């Protein structure tokens, strides 16, 4: 089993290498619409297909053109596979049977769009640049933080050893000196006996200015630390609780390129982006019953919640909701609306939530403090273009005598810092 996995990884790596080469050759000719195609793919296909050879729910689309020499047939197949199956096409029937007789839903795309996506995916999409060094044959990712920890321990050990050495040596030196003096008969006038505290006081009374300056800095440092500490109360940046299911955003949003909105479907309509209901998971996981990292265990938890039997494909009645741990929470007196920011303000998800597509365990990326909100409202320009709501308002802004060229039409300028925008 392990060997096969390794073998697979090896193959994958070589494919990736190949893809990189292919990509660099072809990118110049396709870059103009490849972004659109990528978007289309992400929005419509990514939940079931990969642009590589890997299977997801449906087959990987790498080299799809070679499998479907007749483009018109392929377009018809994508547009409405159920209809196309009725033509009795041999390859289509084979695909249908190979993939558990599950039907691909009809896609409301134009011919041009389908061609664009196919062209794009045929070459393996925007093949990701391999992140692991090529010489890492086993594909084992080095655990970087652990490494640095080890070094620190070693250094610390050496430090302890050295200080013990210094102490021993200095004691030896002292005894030797004493012995030497004893031999020579020199009587050493003992320095006045001082406790360490006394000696510190003696030193301090001779260096008052220095002590004052150091003291001042110390006080400032302590105050600053205290202040920062207090400001940090209730701020949970990097909060990454363990979730009941080890769901990986990296796998879903990163590797599989599923669009955020596919699961968080409320983000353009509601104040909440919404955690997807389990039936959304089942859109794919009715077919994908095994994950790459945890096998059947984690996906099995979705089935357990739904009381779903993957063998018989039947739902039971003993259903229990999944209790996710909430990562981002705002206090009750702050009103935040996702659709205002995403749909109207055209803000990218990542701006506040960070690179979720690379997070194995999702964490709070932004501090979610009021200062952070306000800063953004000060700097961000209103997405007024093509929105009739802002048309007049923008004209008034530009025609204002106080307006200087280059002034930004920011959220602040239309009252985005006012209390009642968020608190009511």
């Amino acid at each position, binding site marked *: 089993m392990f060997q096969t996995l390794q073998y697979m990884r090896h193959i994958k790596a070589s494919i990736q290498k190949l893809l990189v080469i292919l990509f660099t050759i072809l990118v110049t000719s396709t870059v103009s619409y490849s972004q659109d195609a990528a978007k289309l793919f992400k929005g419509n296909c990514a939940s079931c297909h990969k642009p590589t050879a890997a299977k997801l729910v449906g087959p990987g689309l790498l080299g799809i053109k070679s499998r479907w020499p007749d483009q018109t047939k392929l377009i018809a197949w994508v547009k409405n596979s159920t209809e196309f199956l009725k033509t009795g096409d041999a390859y289509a029937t084979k695909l249908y049977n190979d993939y558990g007789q599950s039907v691909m839903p009809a896609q409301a795309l134009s011919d041009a769009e389908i061609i664009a996506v196919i062209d794009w995916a045929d070459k393996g999409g925007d093949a990701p640049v391999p992140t692991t060094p090529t010489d890492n044959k086993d594909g084992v990712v080095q655990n970087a933080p652990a490494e640095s920890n080890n070094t620190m321990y070693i250094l610390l050990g050496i430090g302890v050893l050295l200080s013990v050495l210094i102490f021993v040596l200095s004691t030896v030196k002292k005894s030797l000196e004493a012995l030497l003096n004893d031999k020579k008969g020199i009587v050493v006038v003992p320095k006045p006996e001082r406790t360490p505290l006394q000696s510190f006081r003696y030193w301090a009374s001779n260096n008052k200015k220095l002590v004052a300056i150091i003291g001042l800095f110390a006080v400032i440092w302590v105050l600053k630390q205290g202040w920062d500490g207090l400001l940090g*109360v*209730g701020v*949970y940046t990097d909060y990454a*609780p363990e979730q009941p299911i080890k769901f990986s955003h990296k796998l879903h949003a990163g590797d599989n390129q599923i669009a955020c909105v596919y699961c968080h479907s*409320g983000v353009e*309509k*509601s*104040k*909440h982006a*919404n*955690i*997807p*209901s*389990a*039936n*959304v998971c089942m859109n794919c996981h009715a077919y994908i019953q095994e994950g790459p990292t945890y096998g059947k265990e984690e996906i099995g938890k979705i089935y357990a*919640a*739904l009381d779903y039997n993957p063998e018989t494909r039947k739902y039971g009645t003993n*259903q229990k*909701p*999944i*209790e*996710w*741990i*909430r990562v981002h*929470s705002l*206090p*009750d*007196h702050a*009103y935040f*609306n996702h*659709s*205002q920011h995403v*749909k*109207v303000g055209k803000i990218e998800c990542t701006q506040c939530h960070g690179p979720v597509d690379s997070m194995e365990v999702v964490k709070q990326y932004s501090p979610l403090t009021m200062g952070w909100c306000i800063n953004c409202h000060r700097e961000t320009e209103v997405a007024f273009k*093509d*929105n*009739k*709501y*802002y048309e*007049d*308002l923008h004209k*008034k*802004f530009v025609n204002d005598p106080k307006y200087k060229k280059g002034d930004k039409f920011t959220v602040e300028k*239309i*009252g985005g810092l*006012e*209390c*009642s*925008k968020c*608190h*009511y």
Partner: protein
Amino acid sequence: MSNTKKYWKGIEELKATPEFLQSKNNEFIEDLPVDEFLGNDSIVDTSTNRRDFLKFLGFSVTAASLAACETPVRKAIPYLNKPEEILPGVANFYASTYWDGNDYSGVIVKTREGRPIFIEGNDLCPISNGGSHARIGASVLSLYDSSRYKAPQISGKESDWKSLDSAVSGKLNDIAAGSGAIRILTSTIISPSQKAAVAEFTTKYPTAQVVTYDAISYNAISIANNASFGKAVIPTYDFSKAEVVLGISCDFLANWLSPIEHARQLSSTRKVNVEDKKMSRHLQIESNLSVTGANADKRVVLKPSQIGSAVVSLYNKLTGSSLSTKSLDKKDAIISEIASELNKNKGKALVVCGINDSAIQQVINAINMHLGAYGNSIFLDTPDFTKQGNDAAVMGLVSEMNAGKVDALFIHGVNPVYTLPNGEAFKAALSKVDLSLSFSDRPDETTAVCKYVAPDNHYLESWSDANPRKGVLALGQPTINPLFSTRQSIESLLIWSGNTTNAHDYIAKYWELNFYPSFATLGGFATFWNKSLHDGVVLNNAQIAQDLGTIKITTIPVTEVSAPIADLNSAAALISAASNAKGTEVFVYQKTGIGNGNQANNPWLQELPDPISKVTWDNYVLMNPSEMEDKGFNTINGQVQEADIIDVTIGSNKLTLPVLAQPGLAKGVIGIAVGYGRENVGKTANGIGANAFKFTQFINGTFQSETSGATLSGSVGKYHLAATQTHHTMMGRQIVKEATLEEYKKDNKAGNEDLLLATNLKTIGKDGKAAPKELNLWESFENKNHFWNMSIDLNACFGCGACVVSCTSENNVPVVGKDEVRRSREMHWLRIDRYYSSDMNEEVAEKEGVGAIDKFLKMEIPSANDNVEVVFQPVMCQHCNHAPCETVCPVLATTHSLEGLNQMTYNRCIGTRYCANNCPYKVRRFNWFRYNENAQFDFNMNDDLGKMVLNPDVTVRSRGVMEKCSMCVQRIQAGKLVAKKNSERPKDGAIKTACQKSCPTNAISFGDFNDMNSQVRKTWNNERKYQLLEEVGVQPSVFYLTKIRNKTSKEA
């Protein structure tokens, strides 16, 4: 009564031992070791001294509070299978039907995440026309009443449906086998399918008969119509078609028959505008000062016993006939004036009477016939089906039960033990019934004595349909799953009849068979059903003509009805005979909030101030102030002043209640509101007030709410009443500006003359006089985007209080309870000020040489009797553009927005209350306590179930912060967001504040002042516009339109 009995604490006292005698004056029998403790020197030497103790204390408090900053782990639990239509964070709206046996309205229910949180009127419903009523707006909280039944009950113990069904079916079969009598006592059923279900039941059990009972009866109207026209129906009215309206003891704007509809109709004829300075005239004859009477142009005060004579005398004067009647002495002249005015407006006049006496109603019919109101403003052919009670049948049932002839009694939608005049007799008779069952969804006086309770669903959990009047069909849909193990009564009846269809299927099938055929042109049944469900109402006069006539229910044969009144002469004789009142006369009335008391356990309604008395949380005896002075009762109701408690006795019934001064009330008459004195209903209503239904009576075949022969005791105690307004007049200031129609016809600015302030500025004008707006201390705000303004037409505001309830519902306004209201700490963001007119003013004082102190004392006394005039003025935060609150806040918790709103930020507020101190309108409310999750304020916010009504978009405030009207900023923000998403400017009317939406008369308009076409911008140019306390110069964003009264110069 002196008491000679002696009580002793113990044997020692009885025997009077020497030790006892020695120590009996000491608080503690044994010596306390005080010296021993204080004399202990080792305490001084202890290593932990006081300072150390304080240090430890300080450290641990800091450590504990820092540790407490850790937020608890919060969970986010999504649906397993998300219903397609629910998107968390987005509200859904469903059309449904409100019907509680008394009030009907088409409603729109706002739900969030599957919880109903707000009720508003359905614009498509021809009866509510989008308006609402306090009781309907508050009904959403009654859903979350934790005292509701959680399961069916057998003999007072919780049971389950299986046992109940088998017990009830078993007994029913036994009774049917022995041909025992089965009776269903029900409130009016307006649901066609429920009628069909009842018919199925009566078919299965042929001995079953139905008795219809309305707690507030309108039976006399149908009896009179039967006598006059041969149609035993309640007609519908259209007040908008009448130019002169005379209401006789009829509170048609707030309570009578279909108040939302009437208010909208009447207000449409009273919104004067410059183009057409026409306005209807509203006359009122009554004993009480009702909401309707308070809005009348001319009001005549008569005792209840005189009203009948007045009606007959009015008829005589209108038609020149001479039916025998008693003289009204001085008031005869006024009746003549009214008669001539009505006669002048034949065909455009309407008379309505709220007295449930068939003789009086018969004369009223004759009057309306004479005035030509039928077909113009009264419609017998589109009858109202919401009041079908048969009072005589109810009384017949009681005697039948008493005789032991009834074996099974099902009680549906009514609470006879509480609402019947002889409730105690009913209770006694019920014990003789073998199978007594109530369908009530919550405990009441009747369920307490019923053997079985089969709790019904709340209307928000039910499928229902309704046929409130001819030509109107309505559907009601559930907006939440049943919270408890309850079952719709329609299903219970069907199950006992052997039909296991559920309510939805049954109603759908009924509609498919009976109504769909008329609408088949629309498409398939599914299309018709979905459209009806979406709209909530189906209108078609011709198609639904068959109405309920097709469903025959076996009703009880009425045995006790008195012989029908043959003609007007015998009617007049009956009226004359009834007018011989002895002793003090009593009328009982409904308050707009509590109504007949079926929602008494609803804290929103209890805390809603009565529109006239402004008293919350109580019922009381209303009495004319001068009469109270004669009797030595305290006429002042205030924070400190206590009301006198008196006993009111009629026959064997005695009510003990505080007495309150009511200007404008007839002398020798007292009034008491029904709906109070509830028992066994829940923590909110239990033990408040006394039950005035005991003072209703059954005479001449109907339940009547006027009676006489009461004896009043002197003061037997003192009692604090809690009122939100304890002063009565405007003290000579122009808070509500008013003018008569005649004046307004001459001058558009009548009563609203420009206010000019004298200044010593040479720059302004010639004489230095300036409008307040020109005198600015501050720079103006620039409102580039929106500028939210609100206008309130004082001619259309009738003071009903629907807005107060909807504001409470929308903005999570807490209920504070009676004690806090008494301390003027109520939290309502919107109040309706009510002012009485006074005989004293500056001019009178000068003429009569009244001193300054005397003058102000007299100004506070409302005009005597008939002359008292009333004005209502809703006041909420005026959103001043130069807001005095904003400048005094030390922490900038209240600031101004670029959209003209005065913003209140709770999380910044530290509770100095400077802002409230500086507010000229006194609209700011302070959270003296935490009103949520606090056992001392044990209302809906201290209750897991009650909290479900909270609006998740509005913060629940905590102790120590100020709050006030935000102009529903959450609705503004939501409306703007919709516009932004659609790439357009918000349309005028798309954003509505909660108060505006609920107003049955559209008195409130709200919108963007910068939108040239908005309603509010147009109203701004109306010359009746004025700002409250304009002279203060705060430039409010809320403005009012002067009140115009249609009075003749003689009356004014």
